């Protein structure tokens, strides 16, 4: 009985972790290569969720809606990069934060105009519903297993692209010295746009995976974005490896904290005190973890080489 609960929550933690990783990977790449703080990354997550839900409603086919939603998010990301963000790469972080904060307000309101302020209903296709029998008595929702699988596959794919392909070589070179890469005749603007587009598509993927299990509404991106920041700060800015480690740590700590902190506290202090302190402490847990890690390693667990 207890084992089942623990195993289930661990899987939930893993599922949140891979979701955070999809977002953190794009954000950390954009930061590592363009030296750009993009608060609007969460807005792209929201765009991915809305577009896929809408395409699914229109076409009735989930398999068709997924590529359409991804392509739509990619297009929105590239347009945003070309129109607004490109001029900000050379600016300081303050300007980037403010401009992308403006973009968040813009995107949230745009979505509210198009689809309304209330959460919209998003369903998963019939063949992804239901539970799977894992070991023993443990039954787990199929859709959440799919999320874990997709997330881990993307992590593997990213590792392959960055470590083994020519594009990945350019990305790594761009992160360590962009002036040199430009001097060697690489079209650095195009590289930036490609990297930003990939980041946008990853955010869109996270959004479309999240749509059927979280609520799809304006502002959904910012709730998760701040957790993603914690992930990146813990993992080390600019490092994909760090993003993966940070995402799994944050996903686990947050999920397990919310599930088990209250019962654990009630064995130490009175149950009524645990009722108040448990949820409060659980919601603060990842931030306290971040503070503890920063106190010992100010540039995260896997600082990038710069």
């Amino acid at each position: 009985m207890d084992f089942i609960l623990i195993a289930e929550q661990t899987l939930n933690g893993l599922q949140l972790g891979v979701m955070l990783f999809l977002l953190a990977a794009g954000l950390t790449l954009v930061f590592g290569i363009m030296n750009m703080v993009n608060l609007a990354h969460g807005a792209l997550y929201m765009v991915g969720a809305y577009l896929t839900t809408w395409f699914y409603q229109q076409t009735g086919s989930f398999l068709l809606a997924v590529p359409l939603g991804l392509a739509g998010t990619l297009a929105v990301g590239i347009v945003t990069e070309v129109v607004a963000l490109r001029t900000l790469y050379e600016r300081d972080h303050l300007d980037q934060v403010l401009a992308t904060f403006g973009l968040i307000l813009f995107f949230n309101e745009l979505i509210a105009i198009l689809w309304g302020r209330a959460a919209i209903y998003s369903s998963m296709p019939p063949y992804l519903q239901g539970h799977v029998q894992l070991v023993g008595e443990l039954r787990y929702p199929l859709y959440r297993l799919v999320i874990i699988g997709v997330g881990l596959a993307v992590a593997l794919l990213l590792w392959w692209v960055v470590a083994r392909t020519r594009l990945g070589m350019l990305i790594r070179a761009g992160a360590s010295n962009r002036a040199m890469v430009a001097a060697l005749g690489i079209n650095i603007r195009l590289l930036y746009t490609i990297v930003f587009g990939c980041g946008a598509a990853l955010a869109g993927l996270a959004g479309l995976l999240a749509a059927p299990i979280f609520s799809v509404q304006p502002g959904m991106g910012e709730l998760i974005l701040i957790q993603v920041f914690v992930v990146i700060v813990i993992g080390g800015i600019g490092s994909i490896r760090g993003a993966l480690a940070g995402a799994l740590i944050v996903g686990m700590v947050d999920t397990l904290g919310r599930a088990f902190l209250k019962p654990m506290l009630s064995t130490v202090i009175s149950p009524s005190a645990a009722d108040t302190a448990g949820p409060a402490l659980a919601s603060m847990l990842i931030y306290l973890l971040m503070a503890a890690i920063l106190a010992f390693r100010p540039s995260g667990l896997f600082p990038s080489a710069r």
Partner: protein
Amino acid sequence: MIQRRISSSTWVVVVLIALLAAVPPLAAYLDAPFYLDLLRRVMIFAIAALSLNLILGYGGLVSFGHAAYLGIGAYSVGILSFYGMHSGWLQWPLAIGASALVALAIGAISVRTSGIYFIMITLAFTQMLYYLGISIEEYGGDDGMRLASRSQFPGLIDLGDATSFYYLVLALLVLSLLLVHRIVHSRFGRVLQAARSNEARTRAIGISPYPYRLAAFVIAGALCGLAGALLANQTAYLTPEFMNWTRSGELMFMVILGGIATGAGPLLGAAALLLLEDVLQGWSVLPKEAVRDHWQLYLGIILVLVVIFARRGLAGLLPGGGKND
């Protein structure tokens, strides 16, 4: 040239304060008490923006979590009031002290980092306090709580009276402007600005920036805590939304819009942003629903345009004000 810029900015502040002082009789004459409320709000946010400008503008510390102290200040008033302690002599010093303590804790960790880390960490800590506010049901949780009474200063001033409250806020704004002016032009302020423009050189002449930055961070937090206590009294209501990260973003926008690291900037920026919001929400030129419901769409576009095209803010438009660097 530098002398000229300072005097021009000071001159603007003096004119603005004089104008603000003239508002209550004018509002009474025009029978428009609404403006008293709006401008009091502007002045409270000006105090908050002023405190942020101290670390953001003069210290170069891009804090994306300044709304935390608005919340701490407001909750200090709210929680004491919840337990029946309505004395402002108790509430306001607690608001300032608690904000200073929280700023000390957050600052001790975050000021050690720089750049993007600093931005993300200040944001994350503020978000932590926001969730703390939401999860404590006793103090209203998500819904927040109503103040049973505004802070009481028996025999001195009655905050229930709109005009007295207005002049108290105005007086506190003037004191805050003077305080920040004195700090910026003291030796302490010089070191702070030196560390912003060149940290390596500052270290080379034998000064470690950390204690100066941390002290500035704590002073800014304490001053913003006062603004939070005022804000709770202004609305007679407080919610975790006071600490929402969008509030931190708005405070930053006020500083940039007004003109970063200028004396008049925070006041100009707070006035411009809040009046702009007010105009956008009630604009009669455009179809009403389209604007009133979605004014943040226009605000977002304006924000992006200001950052891209008008980097020196409103203070940069003043004569001699454009030579910031």
